């Protein structure tokens, strides 16, 4: 080709330059549009790209006992993690961390395998690291760029197993729970109350999670620091004050025979506050913190003694003789008996009603008895007659009115309803026949379809110590000015109530069944019960329910003790009740606590018994 004329070349060059200018101009404009005009929007996108919101758990509210002692608190727990990096650099970091955190070479190998398996998440090197190790690590911070120490609040229960059943336990909220309305607004990974008070007062104890941002890369690996200040600080949960006496709970945990199952409830007569609520066997709620070991969980669930089962509020037992007080109270309320009145038929060991012959537990017979004597002797024959005077229908209706077929309304997430007929219709519904009038003979002495929780029985006895009214037992202390809410009330004169108490008093007097559980400083009155459970289970449940207070003063504590297969209410249950009440009251009145408390203990230890000692 001939060389083009320079002028032609110039024209073509000019066209080429114009083309170049157009192309570069388009590019420059396009970059201007995305970087300058819309730059801020993309900058935002870039931030949200790399920052992930991480929730900062709020410390749960602290739980205090009635004297302000901490029962459940939060302690810092330190987790040492390593950010993902090149494997050889992680290996060298771990090897250098070893001496500080106490990792041996096999543990380092294990961790490296974890690191290889998951290259995205930070590698958790050590959970619950010792404070000293963390402090040492902080000093050498510059040497460990990829290492982070995260501080998380961790629940700690001071009373350990003594408080297991009332505290319940905490754990990570489950997927199923998140779908329930109770956990609306909760997020996966949050620690929530699973049982006991932790569950009952979850909304109050939880607090509000804080928010922190961490930097992540394209595959979601965390690369930023944990240690940054949170964008929004967590708001701790509200504290919870209980009516419970922590040391009393620990004392009961110590004295309750560990090879027996059962429950102990102590109520404050003044307001229905629960001083102690213990179920044996118990569990250590600390074991659940930070995820319970699956082997331990299996063990707790498989244990035939069912340690996770709170017998004080879920266990239902035939009340047996302890129910006679209810029969007596109902009779007095209906006016079918006078306290001083002696039943026409004396106890001869047997009682004939129509063609039915019923027995008293004391074969020689009690002879003629008044109300107090009948309670003191637990005379069946007296109560058969009392039952007949009340009549089955009225007994059932009145007892139902006292809540024997209901829950007490305690502030725990789970409470069993008592088993008790609400009306005569119960028999056809449950057993398929209309009851004969002689059913009242069973009902009057606490037999028949009648199973009660230890808490319910304690509540009933508390009403006798009060003016007949019964507040719902509660674990959380009443707020200032908060009225005691009455669940139900017996319509009894002070005279009648005194008669009932007098009957209970004789039980612990010389010759009474619980005489040897008498205390020096306190007037303990109460009723033993031995619940027979049929031919298949020859060993009876042992009850003692009583009222304790200073001499010649109204009772201050209602106590119920139930020992499964304890055989004897007086030998097994009454000493526990006496010792627990003594322990509580001594400390309340500033009297030195002693290990030798009951009359029987004095006799066995050869320590002189001083009889009635007045509170200074």
């Amino acid at each position, binding site marked *: *080709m*001939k*060389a*083009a004329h*320079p002028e*032609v*070349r*110039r024209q*073509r*060059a000019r*066209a*080429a*330059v114009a*083309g*170049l*200018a157009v*192309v*570069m101009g*388009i*590019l*420059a404009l*396009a*970059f*201007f549009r*995305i*970087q*300058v005009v*819309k*730059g*801020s*929007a*993309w*900058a935002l*996108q*870039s*931030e949200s*790209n*790399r920052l992930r919101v991480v929730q900062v758990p709020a410390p749960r509210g602290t739980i205090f006992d009635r004297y302000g002692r901490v029962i459940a608190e939060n302690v810092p727990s330190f987790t040492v993690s390593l950010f*993902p*990096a*090149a494997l050889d650099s992680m290996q060298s970091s771990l090897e250098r961390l070893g001496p500080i955190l106490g990792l041996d070479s096999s543990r380092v190998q294990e961790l490296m395998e974890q690191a290889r398996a998951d290259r995205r998440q930070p590698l958790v090197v050590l959970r619950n690291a010792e404070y000293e190790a963390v402090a040492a690590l902080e000093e050498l911070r510059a040497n460990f760029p990829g290492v982070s120490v995260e501080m998380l609040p961790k629940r700690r229960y001071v009373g350990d197993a003594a408080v297991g059943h009332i505290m319940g336990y905490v754990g990570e909220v489950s997927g199923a729970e998140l779908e329930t309305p109770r956990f609306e607004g909760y997020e996966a990974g949050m620690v929530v109350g699973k049982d006991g008070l932790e569950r009952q007062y979850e909304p109050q104890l939880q607090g509000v999670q804080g928010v922190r941002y961490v*930097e*992540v*890369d*394209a*595959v979601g*690996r965390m*690369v930023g620091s944990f240690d940054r200040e949170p964008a929004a600080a967590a708001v701790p949960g509200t504290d919870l004050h209980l009516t419970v006496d922590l040391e009393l709970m620990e004392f009961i945990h110590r004295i309750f025979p560990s090879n027996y199952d059962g429950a102990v409830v102590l109520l404050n007569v003044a307001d229905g506050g629960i001083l102690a609520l213990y179920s044996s066997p118990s569990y250590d709620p600390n074991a659940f913190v930070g995820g319970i070991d699956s082997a331990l969980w299996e063990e707790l669930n498989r244990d035939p003694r069912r340690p996770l089962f709170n017998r004080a509020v879920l266990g239902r037992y035939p009340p047996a003789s302890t129910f006679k007080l209810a029969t007596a109270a109902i009779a007095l309320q209906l006016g079918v008996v006078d306290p001083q009145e002696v039943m026409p038929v004396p106890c001869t060991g047997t009682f004939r009603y129509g063609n039915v012959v019923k027995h008293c537990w004391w074969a020689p017979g009690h002879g003629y008895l008044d109300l107090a004597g009948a309670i003191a002797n637990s005379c069946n024959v007296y109560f058969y007659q009392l039952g007949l005077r009340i009549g089955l229908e009225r007994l059932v209706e009145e007892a139902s009115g006292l809540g024997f077929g209901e829950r007490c309304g305690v502030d725990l997430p789970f409470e069993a309803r008592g088993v008790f007929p609400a009306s005569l219709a119960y028999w056809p519904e449950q057993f398929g026949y209309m009851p004969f009038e002689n059913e009242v003979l069973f009902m009057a002495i606490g037999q028949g379809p009648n199973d009660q929780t230890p808490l319910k029985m304690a509540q009933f006895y508390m009403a006798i110590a009060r003016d007949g009214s019964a507040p719902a037992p509660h674990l959380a202390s009443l707020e200032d000015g908060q009225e005691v809410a009455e669940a139900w009330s017996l319509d009894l004169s002070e005279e009648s109530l005194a008669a009932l108490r007098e009957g209970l008093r004789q039980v612990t007097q010389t010759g009474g069944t619980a005489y040897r559980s008498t205390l020096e400083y306190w007037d303990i009155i109460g009723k033993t019960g031995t619940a027979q459970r049929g031919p298949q289970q020859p060993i009876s449940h042992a009850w003692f329910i009583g009222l304790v207070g200073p001499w010649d003063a109204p009772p201050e504590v209602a106590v119920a003790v139930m020992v499964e297969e304890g055989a004897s209410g007086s030998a097994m249950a009454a000493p526990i009740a006496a010792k627990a009440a003594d322990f509580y009251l001594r400390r309340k009145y500033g009297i030195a606590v002693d290990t030798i408390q009951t009359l029987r203990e004095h006799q066995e230890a050869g320590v002189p018994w001083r009889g009635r000692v007045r509170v200074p």
Partner: protein
Amino acid sequence: MAWYRRWARDPALVTLAFALSFFGIAMIFSAGVLNAPSPVTEDAWQRQFLWLILALAAFTVVTRVRSDWIEWLSVPAYLIAVVLLAATLAIGTGAGTAEGVGRWIQVGAFRFQPSEFAKVAAVLGLARLLSAREDSPRNLRDLLAPCALIAVPLALVVLQPDLGTALAFLGILFAALFWVGTPALFLFLLASPGLALILSFDVRVWSVYFVGLVGMVYALRYRLYLAESISVVFANLAAGTVALPLWNSLEQYQKNRLLVFLKPALDPRGAGWNLIQSKVAIGSGGLFGKGFTEGTQKRLDFLPEQHTDFIFGVVGEELGFVGVLAAIALFSVFLLRLVRLAERSPDPFAGLVLIGIFGTWLVHIFVNLGMTIGIVPITGIPLPFVSYGGTFLLTCWVMTGLSARLAGED
């Protein structure tokens, strides 16, 4: 600096090439600064530096070859390139970020991309063919030979498949045809089947276009031979009809790239990811950028292929619009210098080589920068001098050498 002048032959062009190369190494270094470093990207800048030394050696050799030898060598070079491209289809391997496609030929420890060499050869071959002509093309038939010359390597590259490089071949063809004075109308008619192919994605748009084209051809019936008119119309018709089967014959990743170009949100974690993250990186750079090596999108590995095809994402994020403008200006000055040299050169072969190189690089720059911000579909095409890649840097410097050598002949 007389030695530099002597060595470089065109100091302005070579200095610009140095500036671009070092800019590239700096950006490749920055691309390797990640929060979770990987050994592949961390040391890439050092390897690129070694390749630059090799490229300078190649440049020295090329600039010492007599220009008539270059002209003579263009025919065998072209033939060798075609053979190598054909061989690549049979024995090619994937590599690096383009693992899946066979673009490389492995000879012992040495691995190179024949398509890069083919670009140089195509520039030379086309320049040789067109400079042999007596005058400017007068009809479409005159365009047959140059088109065929480009079509052979282009088809072989498309089969690899490497659509980006194929576009670079088209850049060479149109730039060279323009430079020999092909009327704009012919260039349009030449491009029209391609246009028809794009427009055929909407039948109505294509129909309007086709009617317009037929009208235009009819209006120009005295300037075109009948056979030419028929060919143009038929080619457009064919392009419109084969569009669907052609679309179906595309690899899924190619379809996805085109689809997400129209709508990135279609597949944000998959094919749309590159585009979205690249836009986020560049957009968040703002006016002044986040600072050299400080790009968060890049550091956190959001930016894909950040040392190769998407290196400009790093530029946009870390240096901001100011840095982008500077880079565009640098490229513009470099390309302007090529045009200036072509204009000055009385030798038609030299002028055609220079303008061919201009054409291919203009396509590279436009497509590469355009795809990072979504104004051009994503095709794997590197940025001259800047993107990491040995063969490509070598090719850039060989082309610079050819330009400097042929420009010197005035």
